[in-house]
Every structure is written in C-alpha cells, then in structure tokens.
C-alpha cells in the first residue's frame, strides 16, 4: 500500500494588509493559473485534475457555503470540489487520503482568506463560542489565547523580553521572504511598549490583519514526475481535537498538539524530531505560541521554553525562517502557509532565507482558540 504522496507545486500571492483592488476569487485564480503554468497539469477528465479541495470560511467571506464562490476559479466544472473548513493544512491531510485511497490521482488544493473584509476579526471568532455560556462573556480567539499565554509563560519561564525577541526576529525573517507581509522593523524596546491587546498579549505580539491566497498541486507517487522534477513528499500527517470548555483542559498542556505530532511522527518513521527533522514552520498566531508549540512537537523540553529561546535554538533548528504567521498570514490558512514555506525550502527555492541541507521539514497548523485543534505534516525531499 502506498504510504506517501507528492506535492508537485505551490503557488501563492503576496501577503498584504488589504487587497482592496481584487476580489478573493481573483486572488485564488492567480494562484491556480501559476499552478497550471508550473506543472502543465490540465483539467482533462481522465488524466488531469478531477478533484479540488478548497479552503475558505463562511464567516470571514460573509458567504454561506463559501466554496460556492470558488467553483468557477478552481475549475470545478463537472468535477469534485470539497471545502476544508479548518486551517487549510488539514486539506493536505485530506488530499493525502484522497490520493492514498486510490480514489484520485491528482488533487488541486486552494485556500484563501481576506481578513481585511471583516469589520472585526474578534467579532468573527467570538462566533466560535457557544451562544449560551461563552459567547455572552465576549470570548474570542484573542482573549482566550491571552489566557493561555499567561498560563504558559508562568510554566515555561517566558518573559516580555522573550516575546519581544520573537517579534523582532519574525519581522526580520519576513523581510527576507518576498511573499511575506511588509511590516515596519521594530526594536525589542518598541515591542515591550506596544499597547496591551489582551493582557499579556500586546498588539505587536499578535499577527496583523492580512489577505492571502495559496494553491498546491498534489499527486500520487506514480504520477508526480509528470508535473515536477522536484516533488516534495508528504510522509506523515496527524491531527487532533482537544475538548472545548476552558475549564475542562489544562491550557498549557499541549494535549492535542502532542497527539497530532506523535501520529505524524509514527507515520513518517520519525524517532527524534530534533535529530531527524531539519526545518520547522510553526503556526504562531501570537508570539508566545512559538516556544509553546515547539514544546508540543518535542523540539523543546517541556516547561523550558524560555531557556530554549535564550540558548538560540530557534536559529539552530531553523524555526520559522519565513517570519511565521506572526509576520502576517490570515486565519484559516496560517498553517497552510507553513507548509507552503516548508515546501519552498525543501525545493531549495527560498532565496536569501534558504537553509542548507534540508532533507525533512515539519509544518504545523492550528484551528480554534488556544490550540484546540492541531495538525502536523512531515515533508521530505
């Protein structure tokens, strides 16, 4: 039975604060056109794309059945089209299932989110909470993440200085990535004086409003060489759901991330991520999450996040060389952006931020508040 699938191409547009001049359909179409050009793949019903996985969100697009607006631009004319309604990185897992099942040979994956369209991101994410107990309290992803930040910082010895360092580094790395959102370079002192958003999360600790779209072409092992000379293989995938009520879980435990990583490692035959994996892209929507997720995937010892940063392990392990989500990727595809970056690195196409000797990479995505759902993908050259 086949155990891996190929990513044959990735195409993206630049992350921008407000793509006011283009509808989200146009953003996705630009990516799909690039995929066709890069790979020569067609929409032939026998040999081409006959299944598409899209990723978008009803609330952020203000469209019921948001993928309905995608069918035209992804070429879903008499074809399958299914929407991944979580972070798009799970779309890689689902596309993997479509290919490994034998049902499909080629799958197009396309995601978008235009955060600039919504009046308030916090108003949108408030809707994720149940209408009876949590929503009336005003809970949203930002303030629930702040509760987790406080718990995790206490546990792992993370101070303001650490967070400032993460933010400064993220923007420096982002500046080397031509697709990254263009942000002002800041100093650690400026980060520490940034206005408080939800204590202890400051404005600069939080990823900014961003619009973006990305597309992937995946195929089974047999057909990969038809579309590329440099396939990147998905050799492991795992995801996991934690429970819902904050009082029912330890906010600093990384419960679902540990399980997701464990599953992905098992599938990919990874014994020790620190030794076996050369590059990590973590879905850090908020600065504290970078060391926290690093603990969750076993890159950093549990409860030692502060010392891990001090010892320079972010550089030694090549973590978030893209700038991470913190530099600016929209929700719903912040994890998928990690996979796009990992693929670019594995193909050796990362330009001035290219890391040397990359054989295996890990991309991570999270959905919901305080990391309720996590997904981990292992990619190989």
């Amino acid at each position, binding site marked *: *039975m086949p155990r891996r699938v190929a990513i044959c191409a990735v195409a993206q547009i630049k992350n921008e604060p407000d793509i006011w001049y283009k509808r989200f359909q146009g953003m996705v179409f630009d990516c799909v056109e690039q995929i066709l050009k890069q790979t020569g793949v067609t929409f032939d019903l*026998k*040999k081409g794309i*006959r*299944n598409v996985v899209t990723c978008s*969100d*009803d609330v952020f697009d*203000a*469209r*019921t*059945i948001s*993928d*309905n*607006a995608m*069918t*035209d631009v992804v070429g*879903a*004319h*008499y*074809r*399958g089209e*299914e*929407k*991944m*309604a*979580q972070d798009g990185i*799970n779309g890689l*897992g*689902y596309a*993997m*299932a479509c*290919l*490994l*099942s*034998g*049902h499909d*040979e080629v799958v197009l994956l396309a995601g978008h989110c235009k955060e600039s369209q919504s009046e308030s991101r916090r108003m*949108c*994410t408030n*809707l*994720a909470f*149940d*209408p*009876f107990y949590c929503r009336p309290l005003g809970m949203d992803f930002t303030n629930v993440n702040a509760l987790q930040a406080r718990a995790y910082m206490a546990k792992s010895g993370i101070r303001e200085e650490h967070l400032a360092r993460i933010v400064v580094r993220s923007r420096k790395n982002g500046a080397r990535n031509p697709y990254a959102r263009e942000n002002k370079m800041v100093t650690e002192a400026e980060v520490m004086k940034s206005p408080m958003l939800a204590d202890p999360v400051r404005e600069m600790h939080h990823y900014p409003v961003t619009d973006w779209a990305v597309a992937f072409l995946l195929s089974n092992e047999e057909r990969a060489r038809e579309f590329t000379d440099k396939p990147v293989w998905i050799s492991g995938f*795992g*995801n*996991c*759901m*934690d*429970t*819902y*009520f904050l009082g029912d879980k330890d906010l600093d435990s990384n419960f*679902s991330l540990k399980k*997701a990583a464990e*599953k992905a490692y098992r*599938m990919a035959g990874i014994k020790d991520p620190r030794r076996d994996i050369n590059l990590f892209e973590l879905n850090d929507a908020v600065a504290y999450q970078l060391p926290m997720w690093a603990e969750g995937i076993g890159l950093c010892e549990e409860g030692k996040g502060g010392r891990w940063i001090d010892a320079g392990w972010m550089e030694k392990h090549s973590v978030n060389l893209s700038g991470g989500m913190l530099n600016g990727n929209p929700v719903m595809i912040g994890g998928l952006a990690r996979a796009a970056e990992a693929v670019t690195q594995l193909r050796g196409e990362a330009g001035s931020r290219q890391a040397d000797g990359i054989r295996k990479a890990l991309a991570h995505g999270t*959905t*919901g508040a305080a990391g*309720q*759902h996590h997904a981990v993908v292992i990619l190989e050259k």
Partner: protein
Amino acid sequence: MAHRKKNRNVGIVGIGQTQYSSHREDVSQPEMIQEAVRLALKDAGISIREVDCVVHGNMELFEMIYQPDLWHVLGTGGYGKDGYRITTGGTTGSTLVAAADNLAASGMYDVVMAIGFEKLQEGHTTGGITNMADALWAKNLQTGALTGYTAARMIKEFGEDRAKRAAMTHRIIMDKHACLNSNSHRAFGLDFDQIESLMENSPKLVGELRLIHMCSQSDGACALILAEEKKAKEISRKPVWIRDHITVHREESFNLFGLEPVEMTHRFAARELFARNGIRDPLEYFDVFEMYDPSAWWGLEWLRDFFLLEGDEHLKLVENRETMIGGKIPINPSGGVVSANPIGATAMVRVAEAALQVRGDAGRHQVPKPVKHALASGFGGTMWTVLFLLEKELTGWGE
C-alpha cells in the same frame, strides 16, 4: 474517467439518526449530535474508543457558529481523536460520507465516524441561503432551492395537467413513505384522492412550486460509522459496502455559457459512475434509490437524469406508482427530503437510509424484496451532485 479500485474496501457498520423535527428546544447542538452518535455506536456495537477519526460538517451561517466542530466536540466524541471538518452545500452530508470513505480507504484510519447535523430552528435558513449569492452580482437573484423554473419547464414539456398531476403524485408517494418512518418531520397522511385539491389549493411559493411540494426546515443529526474491510467484518455481521462515489460540482454562475443549457450534474454523475462500474441498465440494477429531492418537482424531474431515461419514462414510473415501496424501483422509502430536511445531515440520511434498506433493517418502510444494490444521492450548492453505490455483497461487482 480515471478511476481505480479503491486501495481498501470500506463498509458502513453503524447508523444513527435522531428524530427529525421543526424544533428541538430540549437539546443543544452538541446534545442533539450526541443522540445520533450514541445510536450509531450502539448500532455498530462498539465504543467511542474504537473510532479513530471524526468528520464533521454543516453550514456555518445557518446557525451562525464559526467552526462549530470546536464546540460540538462535547457531543461528537472527537476528544483526543483526529478530526476533520469538511463541508460543501446541501451536499455536505454526502461529502462527509465520501470523505470518511476516502480516509478509511487510505490506510490513515481504520474506523471513521461522519457526523452531519443542522438545527435550523436556531437560525434563519432562507436568509442564510440568500447570503450564498455573490454580493456584487447575484444578491437579488439567489433563492436557494425555492425556484419555479423546473415546474415551468415540465409544464411546457408535458402539458400543465399531466406535469402537475405527476408532481403531486410523487409528493403523495413521499408522504405515504414518510408515514411509515418514525423519524419523519412531516408525515401528513395524504392520499391520492387529494391530488386535484392540493394542485389547486396549496399556497403558491414561486409559480407552480407550492408549499406542499417544498422541503421543510428541520432539526436533526445523522452519524455513520465506516470501517475498512477487515475491521468492518469484525464489527458488523452485515456491513454495507461503499462500492464507489462521485462528486460533480459546477460553476456558481448559471449563465457562464450564455443561453446554452449545460448538462445536469446529476446525469453527468450518473453516467460517469455507472460507466466506470459497468452498470448498463441502472433501472434494472438498483433495488432502491434514496434521492435528495428538495421539492416534489425536482424529485420528479431528476429521476430522468439519475436513471439516464429519455422522454417521459420518468413520468410513467411515477404515474404507475412504480416508485412506491412495493414498486419496481422504490424511491425514498424514508419519505425523502420533503419529509425531513436538517440540511447538513440531509444528504447523509440518504446514504444511511439506503444502507438500512440493504441491511433489511428499515422496519416499516423496508422494501419487501431483497435489496442488494442501492443508489443514494446528495444535492446542494449551485446544482451539485454526490452519488453513492452501495452493495450488500463484496464480490461480483459489475460482472
């Protein structure tokens, strides 16, 4: 069309449905889902510990919950498990089964539970559907499934009296079936002597689409447990095998190709699916068909597409009442979508009911002949189709 045999066979081993109703104030969304999940686990005779992965779906703007699987984990049993949320339109329920089939066949998981639900009482369905339209070009046009176009076209093709009579006959057959299904939301006890009176007196919605023709807004949930062959045989004495499925979407812009009508996705899906599985005469091959029929007019018209019929063959099937439970090709023994429509679950209910028929476990609405081959369809979006072939036996397919 490129299609190979699946890498692993997958069977349905557990089926759970809630009561369908216009209002379920007694339960919250996770509680309602938990009812279906508990019934599916009981039906399979397994505990939630044996489920590897949960796939969840509905339409977010109907209840205005963003990423509802996060909250619903309280009822899905998905805690600590792999979880996916995959949606389409009204097709969502069948998309979830297709996804679960892929996930189990891939070798990534052995036992997968698919959960579709909707609690339409807690939202505004038509408002939600209207919000599907392109905000720039189509907001003033989109009415979801509320369209009088099909009725107008059928009246033009078959004459007013014959078309209206056939649509109402289909509607009454559906109600007769619904009266045998204890989960039905709407079961009125209609009879054929009411055809004329309903044709004239049921309130008009759009043109000749009348209130009685139209599906309801329901609350309800459905859960299906799928397992790969080895596990399926361990768990169940009579797994129902998913032989194949096909998803066929099309553009949101109906007039992208000018005034030239494009082929109906149902017909396209049926033709492709039957061809790649060697089914030459679908009307002879299938013993039952559970169809996603949002209105009696569509249910009637779509018979022609799904069975690749020509002319008025589909009308004759209904006029001769061959689509009743005891007829040549029973359509929707469950009562269909016009009798219960919890949208995110509706298309999954079609697969669930078809599987119950294959197992012979449909109770009072069981088709009174051996059911070996079943067809189930989902409908949604802008004329999207998902179509399933279910089989009683694992061997002898397409021979």
